[in-house]
């Protein structure tokens, strides 16, 4: 099982004060450090119209990281593809792929913040359908010399991608949350599926659904991969690990969860300003894995046995994680 980590620096100022350009240096430094510590990939996400420190174009940040690293995979997660023209996105992916020697992986999501769709100037209500079409377009564009595509939202005839990436096709994942809808979309498209934070039971339920649906759709399920965002907090004691988790909730997640509709209620509607005792909020908090190194290793081994390809952990305890957890998966 691979371990990926996200870029440090894409957080709110109250937890990570510093000059704006310095923040982008930190992104690159995280990639360098993660490579040194033995992580397999570094992940860049995307948001717009927020703080001066966020990343509106994760592939460009990965281009910067490519210049300072040599082997770590450079991964978007999630890159909000409906906010792009698919060919422009494929061009950018190919550019970084060439410069990095074929190290790009695309984790592609649909986005959920209305403000981002309004600001970029593209429709939010068609984002799910467009994401599926766009991923197919990128798969075709990066695997064939010339390609044609006829969809509901996009149409290309005898088109050629310039430049062409080293990977043919480019490595690509569908980021669809841990949901039935996500599993359905990933399975229908035959896309590898990258799940959101969730505990083992929920992960297994959705993975089983995904693989079953893929088989029904005639997709070769044996070749499909599934990955997981799994925020992990390690401490010498459980209390220490929970302290680390609570700090991360305060400086990062609480704002995303409470303000931007990051979580869904039981009707599938975005949940704004949920109280801290809301079942959806509590479920999210409980999905964050806390424990001593032994506890964390034991739990993560279950995901490995489930066949999970990779786990993405936050960038806040990389040194500790690399010393206490990673070696148990490298034996």
């Amino acid at each position, binding site marked *: 099982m691979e371990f990926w980590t996200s870029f440090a620096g894409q957080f709110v100022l109250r937890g990570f004060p510093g000059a*704006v*350009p310095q923040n*982008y240096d930190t992104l*690159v430094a995280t990639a360098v450090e993660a490579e040194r510590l033995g992580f397999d990939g570094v992940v860049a996400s995307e948001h*717009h*119209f*927020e*703080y*001066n*420190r*966020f*990343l*509106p*174009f994760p*592939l*460009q*940040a990965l*281009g*910067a990281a*490519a*210049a*300072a690293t040599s082997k770590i995979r450079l991964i978007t997660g999630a890159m909000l593809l409906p*906010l*792009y*023209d698919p*060919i*422009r996105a494929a*061009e*950018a992916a*190919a*550019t*970084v792929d*060439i*410069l990095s*020697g074929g190290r790009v992986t695309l984790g592609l999501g649909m986005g959920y*913040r*209305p*403000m981002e*769709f*309004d*600001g*970029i*100037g*593209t429709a939010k209500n068609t984002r799910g359908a467009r994401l599926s079409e766009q991923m197919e377009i990128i798969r075709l564009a990066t695997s064939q010399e010339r390609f044609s595509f006829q969809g509901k939202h996009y149409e290309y005839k005898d088109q050629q991608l*310039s*430049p*062409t990436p*080293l990977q043919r096709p480019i490595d690509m994942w569908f980021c669809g949350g841990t949901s039935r809808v996500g599993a359905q979309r990933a399975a229908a498209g035959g896309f590898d599926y990258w799940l959101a934070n969730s505990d083992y039971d929920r992960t297994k339920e959705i993975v089983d659904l995904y693989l079953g649906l893929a088989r029904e759709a005639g997709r070769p399920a044996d070749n499909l991969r599934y990955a997981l965002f799994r925020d992990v907090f390690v401490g010498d004691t459980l209390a220490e690990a929970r302290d680390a988790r609570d700090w991360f909730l305060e400086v990062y997640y609480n*704002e995303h969860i*409470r*303000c*931007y*509709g990051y979580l869904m209620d039981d009707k599938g509607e*975005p949940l*704004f*300003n949920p109280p801290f005792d809301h079942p959806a909020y509590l479920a999210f908090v409980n999905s964050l894995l806390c424990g001593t190194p032994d506890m964390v290793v034991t739990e993560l081994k279950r995901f490995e046995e489930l066949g999970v390809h990779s786990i993405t952990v936050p960038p806040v305890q990389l040194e500790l994680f690399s010393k206490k957890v990673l070696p148990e998966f490298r034996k």
Partner: protein
Amino acid sequence: MKVGLSWDLGGDEPAATQWHRVIGEIERGDALGFDSAWVAEGKTGQAGCAQPAVFMTFAARRTKNIHCRALARSVVGEFPVRLAEEITLLDLFSHGRGGVAYAPASGQKIDPLMVHETIEFIRGAWATNEVRYRGKYVRFPSHTPDDAPAGLSYPAWTGEYLPQWEWGAARSTADFLALTPKPVSTHLPVYVAIDDDATLEWAARNGVSPYAGVNLTTTEAIERLARYRAIADGCGRHSYEVEAVLERNVAIDGATDAYTFGGSTHDIACAIRAAAAATRIGHFVWRYRDAAPNDLERFANEVQTKLQA
């Protein structure tokens, strides 16, 4: 006088070798004291560089001082917000060495107004916090109403401020948005090709730096840069507001032609000085191709010094 190097990637050489060779040349240019490196957008062939800002972000992290600029950047088929964001990130990852020159409308087969609106929106959004824009081609945010003032407009203070994180379900977007992140400098270098008369005049009147590219003959380029300057002078704009760029081929010990400054290094320095006297250019860019192994060093030692002293 500043001097730079430019590249147009593509052709038969595979990207995997060609691009890293060019990165090496940019690193050499950085070490030799060239002021700028420009890579042009190209969308043909397997080695065309369709995303020059991404390419230059990689180059920026391999260099220390040279300015890293996207050249001939198209606006057609692009979201204006994304065009602003990519140059901002280039600027941030390079610690203030970013910049962009937009392609002429005629080359993109679009109305010049689309180029003008895009540049005006980008510069306006960099310079302020919340903003909106209503144009014929650019509208930011997309729900900006038809009766909003034309061009850039700004919110009035309503007596209260509600941060995004307190909006809740009742409000998910806004009439004015702040483009983030912001570049290191508000006045990040933005140039536009002046191949089209409408853009030449608009740029001169609006303080946008002109770029006379190597696709123009030397005679055409000097005539257009001089006309730009005359229009700008006529409407009271100062030459220190902008930086005019002339791009040429260079053939050290080679022949001069309609697109090339050739001859001895002294001849080349004199040709650049003559062009500067006629146009007030502040930046000469060498379209780098087919050069001898030591030409970069010769230019740095024998031409650059004569442009500065």
